[in-house]
C-alpha cells in the first residue's frame, strides 16, 4: 500500500485536501437534546446544540458542534483547553456526559469549488454538506461525518484507523481529476 500521507496536502485545480494536525475532539452524549446537559452547553458556549443535520461554531470560534445522532453531538476544539472547559461545564449534568475523542478521529479539510465532485465519487450526494450542515455518510466505504461552516470548505471526520484508506481512495480519484 502506498504511503497515504505522502504528498499531503493533495491538490488539483480548484480542490485541496489537507489533514488537520492533532485536532481535539469529543462527543457529547445525552438523552434529551433540550435537557440539563444541553442547557449547560448553551450556557458555556453561547450556542445551542445543533438540530438534526446541522453544525455550528461557538461565537468565540473555539468549538465546532456537529449533530451526529438524536443523542450525540460531535465536538471539534481549537485546543485541549476549550474541550476541558466544556467538560467541566457539563460535569454536573446528570442526563449525559462528554467523552473525549482526541486522537480517535482525524479531520480532513477540503477547500475549493470541486468538493462536491470529489464527494460524489467517494460516496454520494448525501455526503455533500452545505454551510451549516453536518451529514453522516459513508465515503470510500467507511463512515465519515461531513460538515461545513462556510462556502467552499468542508471538513471530514473519520475514524483514525480508516484515514489511510480514505486518503488512498482520494488520491486515486484526484489523479483521475488531474488526468482528465
Amino acid at each position, binding site marked *: 500500500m502506498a504511503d497515504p500521507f505522502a504528498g499531503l496536502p493533495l491538490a488539483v485545480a480548484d480542490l485541496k485536501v489537507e489533514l488537520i494536525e492533532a485536532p481535539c475532539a469529543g462527543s457529547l452524549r445525552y438523552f434529551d437534546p433540550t435537557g440539563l446537559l444541553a442547557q449547560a452547553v448553551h450556557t458555556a458556549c453561547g450556542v445551542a446544540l445543533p438540530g438534526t443535520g446541522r453544525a455550528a461554531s461557538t461565537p468565540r470560534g473555539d468549538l465546532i458542534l456537529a449533530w451526529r445522532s438524536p443523542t450525540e453531538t460531535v465536538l471539534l476544539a481549537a485546543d485541549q483547553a476549550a474541550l476541558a472547559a466544556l467538560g467541566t461545564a457539563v460535569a454536573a449534568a446528570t442526563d449525559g456526559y462528554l*467523552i473525549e475523542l*482526541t486522537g480517535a478521529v482525524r479531520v480532513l479539510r477540503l477547500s475549493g469549488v470541486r468538493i462536491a465532485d470529489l464527494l460524489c465519487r467517494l460516496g454520494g*450526494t448525501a455526503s455533500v454538506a452545505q454551510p451549516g450542515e453536518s451529514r453522516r455518510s459513508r465515503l470510500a466505504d467507511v463512515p465519515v461525518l461531513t460538515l461545513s461552516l462556510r462556502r467552499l470548505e468542508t471538513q471530514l471526520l473519520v475514524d483514525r484507523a480508516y484515514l489511510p484508506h480514505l486518503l488512498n481512495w482520494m488520491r486515486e480519484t484526484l489523479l483521475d481529476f488531474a488526468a482528465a
Partner: protein
Amino acid sequence: MSGYRLAAPHGAFINRARPLSFTFNGRPLAGFAGDTLASALLASGVRLVGRSFKLHRPRGVFSCGVEEPCALVDVGRGSRRTPNTRATVLPLQEGLSAVSVNCWPGVSVDIGALNGLLAAALPAGFYYKTFKWPGWRWFEPAIRRMAGLGHAPLEADADHYEEIAQEADVLVVGGGIAGLACAVAAARAGAAAWLLSSSERLGGALSYRGDREVAELAEAARRFGVRILTRTTAFGVYDHNLLVACERTCAEGDPDLPQCVLRERLWKIRARHIVSAAGSFERPLLFPDNDRPGVMLAHAAARYALGYGVACGKRAVIAANSDGAYAIARDLRAAGIEIAAILDRRAQAGPDADTRQMKIVTAAAITAVHGRRRVRGCHFASTGGSPRGRAERIECDLILSAGGYTPAVHLHSQAGGRLRYLSDSAMFVPDGAAPGLYSVGACAGVFARGPAVGHAAALGEALVRGHLVPAAPVGGAGRAEAVTRVAGLGGKQFVDLQNDVTAADVELAARENYRSVEHLKRYTTTGMGTDQGKSSNINALIVMGECTGRVPAEVGTTRFRPPFVPVSLGAIAGRRAGSLYRALKELPAHGWHAGHAAQFETFGDWRRPAAYPQPGETVETAALREAATVRSRAGLFDGSPLGKLEVYGPDAARFLDLMYVGTMSKLAIGQARYGLLLSEHGTLVDDGIVARLGPQHFWVNTTTAGIDRTAAAFEEWLQCEFVDFRVLVTPVTSRWANLTVAGPRAWQWLAAVGLTDELAPQAMKHMTLRASRLGEIPLRVLRASFSGELGYEVNLPADHAEGLLERLWERSGEIGACLYGIEALQVMRIEKGYLHIGSDTDGTTLPQDVGFARGIEHKGANFVGRRSLARPAALAAGRLQLVGLKSADARSLLPVGAHIAAHAPPAPIDGRVTSSCFSPALALPIALALLSEGARRTGERVRLWHLGQEYQAQVVKTPFFDPQGERLNG
C-alpha cells in the same frame, strides 16, 4: 466479397477523411473514424465473424446494436483484453486488434464444429437429463472445458474505474427523439433533467437521417441545461428510483492509450422520476438455417447503409412478417442494394407495399438457405398449403429478417411494471407506468413519430408540474403476426442464436411438459446468453404458445432483470481493487511496528503484526519463539484493535445484565467480569470483558471483529425492545490504544517505565481496572489475560501509543522481553483452551457447548437468549462441544478444518478441528475441536481426515497448560 462501402452521401456517421487501420484475427483491415468494428468488418467483406456457443456454427454480424447475439470478439491485448465485446457497439480505433471467440484453431476451421455432428445428442435440457442418467460426472469435465466464449485477461487490470453518485429530478434513458422531447420539456419546466444515451450520437433511429427536429431538440436540451451523458448505458433500475448506468470513458481497444486510464465510470443516479425512452428491437423470423452469415436484421442493414455507408450485400431477400419491412426495402434500394424479393409471411402485404418496384410474394417463407459460411441464395415456398410445396430459388448474398418490433421494456420490467400484449402488432408493451418509471416512444409502444414526440413532451412537463401524466398513444408499428417458424422443414430454425436454441428445442421442452416461460428459459437456456435474449425471447414464447395451444399473452414473458447489457467487473468494483479492495484499519502505531520488522496480516479488518520474525525465521517459527519468551519472561503485544465501548446511563447495569451471560450489575467500581453475548436464539455472538468505571458508567471490551456487531446488537435492543432504558452506547475503540504486557516479568517491565505501585499485582487483582496516569497521559489499566500469564492491558490515548511502545522497548533488554504478534497470542490461548469466537464457534454454538453451563445455572435473572437455551434442540444429545485434542503421534499438526470421523470420507462427520498449533510449552501439537458429545469423550482416540490424509488424536480436557491458572498472578 459481399459487403462493400457505399459512396457518399450514405454514411452519416463516418468520416471518410480519417481512415483507420485495424486487425481482425490477425488480418489487417481498414475502416473510417465513426465506424463500429462491425460496420468496418462488413465494409471489408468479412462475413464470418465468430462461432456459436454450443454447436460452433459459423456466424456473422446479425444486428447493429446491443442486441447482437453473434458478433462477439475479444478486443485488445494483455491486461486490456476485453472478452465477448459486441462488435456492433465497439467504436473503431486506430490499431484496434480483435479476434473471434469460441473457435480453435481459428474461426474458419474450428474443431469445435464437430459438435454439430453430435447435435442430436445435445437436446434441450441436456444438463438436467444427465443429472438423472447416465450421470453428470461423465460429461462435466468436457463441458467445463468447452464452457464460455472469450478469454479474460490473465494480467491484473491496471486501469481505473470510478463510481459516481448523483441526483436528478427527471432522468431520461435514451437519446432518441422521444427521449430528447421529454428531457427538454422537463428542463423547460424547471427540472434538473438528465439524459443518458448509449450512443455518442443523439437521435436514436433517426440519428443517421440528419433530422431537423432532432437537431433542434438537441440544441434546446443544451440551452435548457439538460445534462447529457453519451456513451452511457443504463443497465439497472433498483429500489427507490436508483438507476445505474455505465459510461465508457476511454477508447476501448485503442493500443495507444496511456498506461493507466480511467476506463469506465459507474453512475448511480437517484431520480425523482425515471423516463425510459429506450426504443425497440427488431424481431427476427424463424426459417431453416436462419443463422448463416449473411442473414441479419433488416433494420440493421438499413442502419449500416445509411449511417455507416456499408452495403451488407449486393442482392438481398427480405423475409417479412410486418409492415415495417417495406420502408426498409425502399431505403436499401435507394442506397443501391438490389432487393431480389420481399417474402411476406402474411396473406396480405403491408399497406405501403409497392409491387411495381419490387417483387413481393405473400404467404411465403424461406424454406432453405444456401451457403454455409456466407449466404449464396435461398429457396422459398408458399405457406398457404404445405411448406414442402414447390420451392423457388432466389440467388442472393443477403437475407434480411423483418419480423416486427419488440419494445425495449427491460427497465420498465425491472422497475416492477406490468406488460400487455398487442396482438395486431405482436408485441408486449408497458401496461401503464411502473412505480417511479414512465415509458415514452417506441419502448412504450408509441411508434408514430408525431404522437411519440407529443406524448414524451407532455409527460416530461407533467412530471415536473405534478399534473396527471398522459397515457401513451400506443400504435404506429404497423401490423405484424405472431407466426414465426415454418413447420415441417429440415434444418435448424434458431430461436436464440447465441445459445444455439432452436424451435425444435422449444417444442421438445413443451412435449416434456414445461409450460411456464420461466421454466422454458432455464431448461433450454434461451435468453441466457450475453445478449439476454433481446432478439429471441419473444420468438421463444410465441413458439411455446403454438406448442401448448396458447396465445402469447397467455404465455407471458420472463421477468427482465439487470443488467440490461453486460457490465465489466471493473465497473462494478469501481475503486475497490488492489489496496482499496477492502477498507482495512491501521493501528495507531502502525509505523512503529513496521519499523520493528512486524509481518502484517489482516485480522478482523485490521492490519496487525502477525509476528516479528528475526533473520531466518518464518512467521510460524517467530510465533513459537515469541510465545516461549512470554511464558518465560515477558512480551509486549499491541491489542489496540480490541473493541471498546462505553455504556453509560442510569439503566446501564440493568441493560448489561440482560445483554450478557454474567451479572454485571454486581460489579463494584473497578471490578471486571468476563461475559458472553448471545443472540435471541441463544447462540454465541461475541465475548468480552465488562468493567465498571462508575455507578452508571461501564467499559466494555469486545473481540476485535465483534465490535460492530456488539454495538449494533446493543443499539437494536435499546431501540426496539428496551425502549424505556436510559442507556447510551458509544464506541471508543480508536480513542484508546491497548498495549498488553504479559509474562512473569510483566509488572517489572511496566514498573521500569513508570507505572505506579497501585497497579502492582499485589495491589491490583486479576480482572480489575484502574484509572491511572503516566505523567500527563491518562491510563485505564486492566488486569486481564488471554495468554494465561500475568497480564496488563494498558489502555491509553491512541496518540500516545508510539511513545509508550518506545519507552517499553527501550527497557526490554533488561527484562529479556520481546514483541509478540497475534500468532503467538493464538498459540498461548490454545494452550490455555481459551475460546476464540468465530474460530471455535459457529452459528449454532451455545454457551453450554463451550463449557459455560454453570455460568447459566448460576444466573437467576433473565438475559437475551436465555429462553432459547431450554429448547429441545439446545438440550439434545449429539451437540458439538468444545474439547481439546492431542496429536496421537506427538508430531503431526492437526489441520484446522480436519473432519473427525470414524471412517474415511464420505462418512458421518463427528466434529471438526477449530484451532490448532504446535505448543512450545508442551512441545507437542495440540488443537481445539467441536466434537459431538465431546464433554463425555475425554480419553477417546479419534480419527481425523483432511485432504485425503488421516490423523489420529486423543480427546483431552482443557486447559492444556497451567490448569490451575497459577501463572495469572506472575
